[in-house]
């Protein structure tokens, strides 16, 4: 046992104290300043990041022989060849010939668990992501591990294949599609600079500088939830706010939206797992 878990627990407690103050009584500038202070603290001591516990858990899961086929995920091809994890996340989503589909990291991990380890898809997708204050899921840990292996790299997802270009164009179009009882599209809340919902700042994804700042932060440890949240989960949460049904995990829709976000963030640094409110 190292100091890591203890430091992480301390940090979580500190963050929880900041975030659980009655939001309404709090000036938004103060909230932002506090979160910024903790982000700085993480920069000074990266090991105090609670999300790294999930990355560690994910690494152990990655290497463990599991499933009906009793295999590890070390043979998983994330796009840079079987077994290559370093830097792979920075080049996802991408087209995979074996599935004839564009896949993001999470979709690919599901596929590897299915094919290499023999887990039934339904079982993998039974509880892909955790609810607030629940124990994190295996998929969350695995995705955090894979992303963490691209820390410091810059987003550079390929757009050479026709299907990659198609996913990107569809993702962009889906971003602007208005639907549901509230008439929301993603752009309703993320379509202008400097806007907020209540006190939460809303990134403006059409602007590459803003996309670069936040897209590489996911999967992120969410202080308000006490667990890591992946990009697939983040998108599901936004669809929930839009009063739409629960979006299918690892669907072409969520992958296409991720292609769009990552393309807007091209050249942005991957800092996952980061800390979010």
């Amino acid at each position: 046992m190292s100091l890591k878990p203890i430091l992480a627990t301390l940090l979580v407690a500190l963050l929880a104290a900041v975030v659980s103050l009655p939001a309404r009584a709090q000036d938004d500038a103060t909230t932002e300043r506090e979160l910024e202070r903790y982000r700085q603290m993480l920069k000074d001591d990266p090991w105090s990041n609670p999300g790294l516990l999930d990355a560690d858990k994910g690494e152990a899961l990655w290497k463990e022989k599991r499933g009906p086929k009793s295999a590890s995920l070390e043979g998983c091809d994330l796009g840079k060849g079987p077994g290559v994890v370093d830097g792979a996340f920075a080049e996802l989503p991408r087209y995979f010939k074996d599935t004839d589909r564009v896949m993001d990291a999470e979709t690919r991990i599901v596929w590897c668990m299915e094919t290499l380890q023999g887990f039934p898809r339904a079982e993998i997708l039974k509880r892909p992501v955790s609810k607030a204050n629940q124990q994190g899921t295996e998929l969350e840990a695995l995705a955090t591990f894979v992303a963490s292996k691209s820390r410091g790299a810059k987003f550079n997802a390929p757009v050479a294949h026709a299907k990659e270009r198609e996913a990107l164009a569809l993702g962009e179009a889906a971003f602007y599609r208005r639907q549901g009882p509230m008439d929301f599209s993603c752009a309703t809340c993320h379509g202008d600079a400097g806007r907020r919902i209540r006190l939460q700042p809303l990134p403006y994804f059409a602007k590459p500088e803003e996309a670069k700042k936040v897209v590489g932060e996911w999967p992120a440890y969410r202080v308000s939830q006490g667990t890591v949240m992946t990009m697939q989960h983040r998108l599901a949460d936004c669809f929930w706010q839009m009063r739409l049904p629960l979006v299918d995990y690892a669907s072409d829709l969520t992958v296409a939206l991720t292609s769009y976000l990552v393309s807007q963030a091209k050249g942005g640094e991957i800092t996952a797992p980061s800390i979010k409110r």
Partner: protein
Amino acid sequence: MHRLILIPCLLAVAVSAGSALAQKKGRPSPQAVDKLVEDGFKTAAPDWKVRLVQDETQKACTASRNEPAEAGAAAIRRREKATIKYPEDGNLLGDWKKGEALAQSGYGWRYTDYPPRQANGGNCYACHQLDKKELSYGTLGPSLAEYGKIRKFAEPAVKFVYEHIYNPQASQPCGNMPRFGTSGFLTMDQIKDIVAYVMSPDSPVNK
């Protein structure tokens, strides 16, 4: 034979391309996007899937990225205005205290909100400043602080606020505010209560 069929088809394509639904070069067709969205919710129940289907206004706003050409904008205004229903007694002002609670609440119609545990809320604070004492407000819409006072509590302003909550697209085609009355998300009485919160002299919004 084939050519004869093709010509009207081409004409139809040309005509629709000239309309507000014109598809920008390089963008996927609306049908392709519809399919992507539909396929993203395969596991959803049928009564939920209907929420993915766009009405005419949503289609026009999507196609124009919320900047409909004048003719399209006029059509939206006309269509949306026709959906607004008014109280029979003509009184548009309800109870501002109830309106305050509704302006604060974002409850309703999310999949975690079933079976309903409370009334739907208007969530005005998510997007607007209202009572200046409330510091937790969003900025997707303009500030409504002292909205009634600034307008001298005048009757046309009361009517405008009622209509704007009921259906903002009657005056702001493709605006970002939800059509709370037309969608059935808020009842007429709830809308009246919120109008009072924005427009009555006693309301903290106007202090």
